[in-house]
C-alpha cells in the first residue's frame, strides 16, 4: 500500500492546565474520507489546528505522505497539500468568487494575468468536481452553501490533496448538506483525502470510510464506518449511553404568555424581513419556528426581545403590550419575565474577552443581588457564577477563565444558565445547539423541556429540523418573512421541508 496521507504519532498538546491532546496517534489512508467526531472541547479542533500549523504540538510527529513534516504555519501546511475549510468562512464579502479564490495566491503584482489564469483553473476544478459557482458573483450575494463551495475551491486552487473540513454542515440546509456530501464523494473519487470534523453522527454514517472518536483530548477509538452504529459512536463520544430522542410528557398548555400580532419588520435598507406575522405562545408549550436560515427568524427574535424596532404590529407579554415599534428596552423586558438566548452567542449573548462570571450577569447586571450601590459585588457575582457552573456542569469549572476559552457547548451553557436561572415566564431561544456537541445537546434539550413542564412559554427558533421536531408542541414554518404553515409535532421531515422551501418549491436544492 502507498503511504498514508497523514500519519500522526504521539501528538500531545497542553494549554496551561488544559490537556487538549493526549498522545494521539492516527493514520488516515490516502483517498478516503475520515471522520473525526467528539464533543466540543474534546480536542478535535486543536488537533486539526496542529495539522494546519496554527499550533505546534508539545510532543509528537506528523508525517504527510510518508514524509516527516514540520508544520510551523498554515503556509507550510498548504505547501504540503493540506487545505482547510473553516467552520466560519474566511471570505472577503464584497469581493467576487474569483478574487477570493486567488486571495493570498495572486502570484504577481498585476491582477489581470493571474485572474485570467485563475479563471481557467477554476473552470477546470468546477468541471472535475461538480463545484459549479459563478466566478464573478459577489460573495455576499451567494447563499451559504455556495460560499462554502468557494472555500473548497480556494483550497483546491492551492493544490490541496488533503482537505480538512471543520463542522461543514453547521450552516447548511439538509439539501445543501446532501449536495456537499456528493461533492466530497466526488473528490474522493479523484483521489483526494478528506478529513471531516463534525459532531453530527448521521453525517459520519453517510459519507465516511473510517471514523475516529475523541473524548477529553484522547483518541478513544477508530472504527470502519461500515462496522459501527450511531449508538456505539454516541456512547464512545460521551463515555456513557445517550438518549438521542427527548423524552416528553403530553402538552398541557395554559394562558397565552406571548402574543405576536401582524408584526412587520424592515431592515436598514427598507427590505421587509418579517411580513405580517402573528402567533401565540402559551404557558407550558414549546412553539418551534422552522425555516432555512435567513428567512426572517433572526429579525423576528430580535424584534420580540426589543433589540430591533418593528415597522408595524404589536407584541404582548402576559397581556401587556411591548413597545416594539419604538422604545422597547431589553432590560425592561427582562424585568417583565422574558429571557432570551440569542442566536449569535459570540457577539450578542456573550462578551468573549470577559471572564466567565462577568458574562454570567450580562443583562441582569442591574439586579440588586449583584450590586453594592454603584459597585459590582464581585464576591456575590463569582459565587453566583460558581453555582451555575456546578448546576449546568460548565467546563472547565473556572469562573475567572476568559469566556473565549470555553468550547461552544460550554459557552452556550453559560448563556442558558444565565437566562434560565432567572426563572423567566417566557423564554425566547435561537439556535440553542448550533456548534454544540451531542452530550451538551441532550442536556440543553432536557433543560428546555423542563422549562416547558414548569409552565413556561418557550419560543424556539432553529434551523435544525430534528431539533424542532423533537422539542416543539407546535411547529410554525417561516419562509421569506412569512409564517407559511403550522403543523403538529408529528409532521414529517418531507412535509416541513417543502414548506421551508416555499410552497412553490422555488428554493429547491441550492
Amino acid at each position, binding site marked *: 500500500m502507498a503511504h498514508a496521507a497523514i500519519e500522526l504519532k504521539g501528538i500531545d498538546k497542553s494549554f496551561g492546565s488544559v490537556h487538549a491532546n493526549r498522545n494521539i496517534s492516527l493514520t488516515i489512508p490516502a483517498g478516503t474520507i475520515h471522520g473525526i467526531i467528539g464533543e466540543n472541547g474534546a480536542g478535535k479542533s486543536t488537533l486539526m489546528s496542529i495539522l494546519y500549523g496554527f499550533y*505546534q504540538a508539545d510532543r509528537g510527529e506528523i508525517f504527510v505522505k510518508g514524509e516527516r513534516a514540520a508544520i510551523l504555519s498554515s503556509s507550510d501546511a498548504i505547501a504540503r497539500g493540506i487545505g482547510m475549510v473553516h467552520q466560519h468562512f474566511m471570505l472577503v464579502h464584497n469581493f467576487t468568487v474569483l478574487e477570493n479564490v486567488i486571495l493570498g495566491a495572486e502570484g504577481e503584482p498585476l491582477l489581470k494575468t493571474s485572474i485570467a489564469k485563475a479563471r481557467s483553473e477554476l473552470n477546470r476544478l468546477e468541471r472535475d468536481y461538480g463545484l459549479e459557482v459563478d466566478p464573478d458573483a459577489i460573495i455576499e450575494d451567494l447563499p451559504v452553501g455556495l460560499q462554502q463551495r468557494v472555500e473548497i475551491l480556494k483550497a483546491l486552487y492551492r493544490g490541496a490533496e488533503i482537505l480538512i473540513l471543520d463542522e461543514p454542515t453547521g450552516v447548511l440546509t439538509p439539501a445543501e448538506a446532501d449536495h456537499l456530501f456528493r461533492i466530497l464523494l466526488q473528490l474522493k473519487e479523484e483521489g483526494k483525502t478528506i478529513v471531516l470534523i463534525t459532531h453530527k453522527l448521521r453525517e459520519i454514517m453517510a459519507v465516511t470510510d473510517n471514523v475516529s472518536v475523541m473524548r477529553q483530548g484522547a483518541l478513544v477509538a477508530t472504527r470502519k464506518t461500515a462496522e459501527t452504529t450511531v449508538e456505539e459512536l454516541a456512547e464512545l463520544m460521551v463515555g456513557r449511553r445517550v438518549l438521542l430522542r427527548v423524552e416528553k410528557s403530553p402538552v398541557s398548555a395554559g394562558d397565552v404568555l406571548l402574543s405576536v400580532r401582524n408584526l412587520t419588520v424592515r431592515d436598514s435598507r427598507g427590505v421587509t424581513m418579517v411580513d405580517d406575522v402573528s402567533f401565540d405562545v402559551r404557558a407550558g408549550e414549546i412553539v418551534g419556528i422552522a425555516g432555512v436560515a435567513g428567512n426572517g427568524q433572526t429579525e423576528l427574535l430580535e424584534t420580540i426581545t426589543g433589540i430591533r424596532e418593528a415597522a408595524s404590529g404589536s407584541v404582548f407579554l402576559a397581556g401587556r403590550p411591548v413597545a416594539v415599534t419604538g422604545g422597547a*428596552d431589553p432590560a425592561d423586558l427582562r424585568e417583565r419575565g422574558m429571557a432570551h438566548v440569542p442566536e449569535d452567542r459570540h457577539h450578542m449573548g456573550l462578551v468573549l474577552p470577559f471572564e466567565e462570571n462577568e458574562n454570567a450577569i450580562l443583562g441582569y447586571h442591574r439586579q440588586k443581588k449583584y450590586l453594592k450601590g454603584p459597585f459590582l459585588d464581585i464576591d456575590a457575582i463569582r459565587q453566583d457564577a460558581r453555582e451555575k457552573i456546578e448546576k449546568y456542569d460548565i467546563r472547565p469549572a473556572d469562573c475567572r477563565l476568559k469566556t473565549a476559552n470555553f468550547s461552544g457547548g460550554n459557552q452556550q451553557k453559560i448563556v442558558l444558565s444565565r437566562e434560565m436561572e432567572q426563572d423567566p415566564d417566557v423564554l425566547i431561544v435561537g439556535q440553542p445547539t448550533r456548534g454544540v456537541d451531542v452530550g451538551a445537546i441532550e442536556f440543553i434539550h432536557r433543560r428546555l423541556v423542563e422549562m416547558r413542564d414548569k409552565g413556561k412559554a418557550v419560543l424556539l427558533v432553529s434551523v435544525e429540523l430534528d431539533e424542532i421536531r423533537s422539542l416543539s408542541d407546535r411547529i410554525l414554518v417561516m419562509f421569506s418573512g412569512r409564517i407559511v404553515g403550522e403543523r403538529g409535532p408529528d409532521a414529517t421531515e418531507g412535509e416541513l421541508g417543502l414548506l421551508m422551501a416555499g410552497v412553490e418549491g422555488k428554493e429547491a436544492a441550492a
Partner: protein
Amino acid sequence: MSAPYAKLPAWADYGLIPLINLTVAFIVAGLVVLLVGENPLRAAVILVDGALGRGQAIAYTLYYATSFIFTGLAVAVAFHCSLFNIGGEGQAYVGGLGVALACLAFDRVFPWWLTFPIAIAGAAVFGAAWALIPAYLQARRGSHIVITTIMFNFIAASLMVYLLVNVLKPPTLQAPSTRTFLEGGQLPKLNFMIEAMGLSVRSSPFNVSFLLALLAAFLVWVLIWRTRLGYEIRTRGHSPKAARYAGIGEARIIIVTMLISGALAGMMALNPVMGDQNRLQIDFVTGAGFVGIAVALMGRSHPAGIVPAAILFGMLYQGGAELAFEMPGISRDMIVIIQGLVILFAGALEHMFRPSLQTLFATVRPASVGAKAERAGGV
C-alpha cells in the same frame, strides 16, 4: 474553533512587549543621534541622568508625568468603550479655563485647600463639557468621534486665544494671560517628598496634583472594573451587539464615557495652571493631550500601566530638555523626534512584535501559553 495564535502569559504581555518596543525605539533613536554626529551612548546617559540623576530632575520628571497620567487615563477610559478620544488636548485646554475661573474667583478669600476642590470641579466640568458635543454627535448622529474630537482641539485653541486676549487678560498685561493667582489659588509643592529621600530640590513645579493624579488612577480602576457603569462601558467597548442585547443604551453609555474622559483630560490643567504657572496662559497644554494617547496605548489602558508609562514620558520630556541643553548637536527638534519614535514603537506599533513573540512562545514554552495564562487582564 480556537484562536489561531497562542496567547502570551501576562508577564510577557505587560512587561516584555513594552520593554522590547522601548528598546527598539531607543536603538532607532540612537541611529538618529549617530546620524547628526553625536555619541548615542553619551546621549542616553545624559537623557537618563537628566531625568533621574538629581532630586531636581526627578521633581521635573514627576511634574510632567502628572499631566500625562491625567490625559492617559482620559484616553484609556474612552478606549474601554472603544471610543478614540483624540480631543484630550482641547479638553485639557478648556479645562484650564475652569481652573482659572475658580482660582480668580476664590483666591482672595479661600486658602488653597478650599479653592482646590472647586478648581477640580471646574476643570472636570469644563473638560467634560468640551467632550460632550463630539460625544453627542457620535451617539445621536454617528459622526465619528475621532474626527470631531480633533476638530474640537482646533476650536478650543481658537476659543482660548480669544478669551485670553479679549476677556481674561488684565489691561496692564502685555502677554495674553490672566493675572497671577494669589496664594489661595496656588497648589503647594511636593518637593519635600523628594527631599525626604535625601535629595535636594532647588525649585520645581512638582505639586500636589501629582497625588490627585494617583488617586484618579485608582478611581479609574475602581470605575472600570468594580462598578456597574464600568461593566457597561466594557461591554459596549467589546461588543456593541452584546450591549444592545443587555439593554445598555448605546447613546447614554457613549455620552457618559466621554464625559468622564473629558473630565479627566480637563483635570490635567490643574497641574500646570494651578500647580506651576499660577495663571492661565496660551498653549499651556503643550501636547500632553496627544502624549496621553501614547501613554494609554503603552499602559494597555490599565491604570497600573498608565502610571509607569506616564513617568517614562515624563523622563523623556525632562531628560530630553537636558539633552538639548548639553549636546550642541541635538536641538529641541531632535528631542521631539526621539519622543516621536517612542510613541511610534510603544504606541502605534504596539502590536508589531506580538505575532513573532507569540510564535516563539508557542514553540519554546508551549505549556505556558493558553487557557490559564489568558485570564482577562483586568484584575
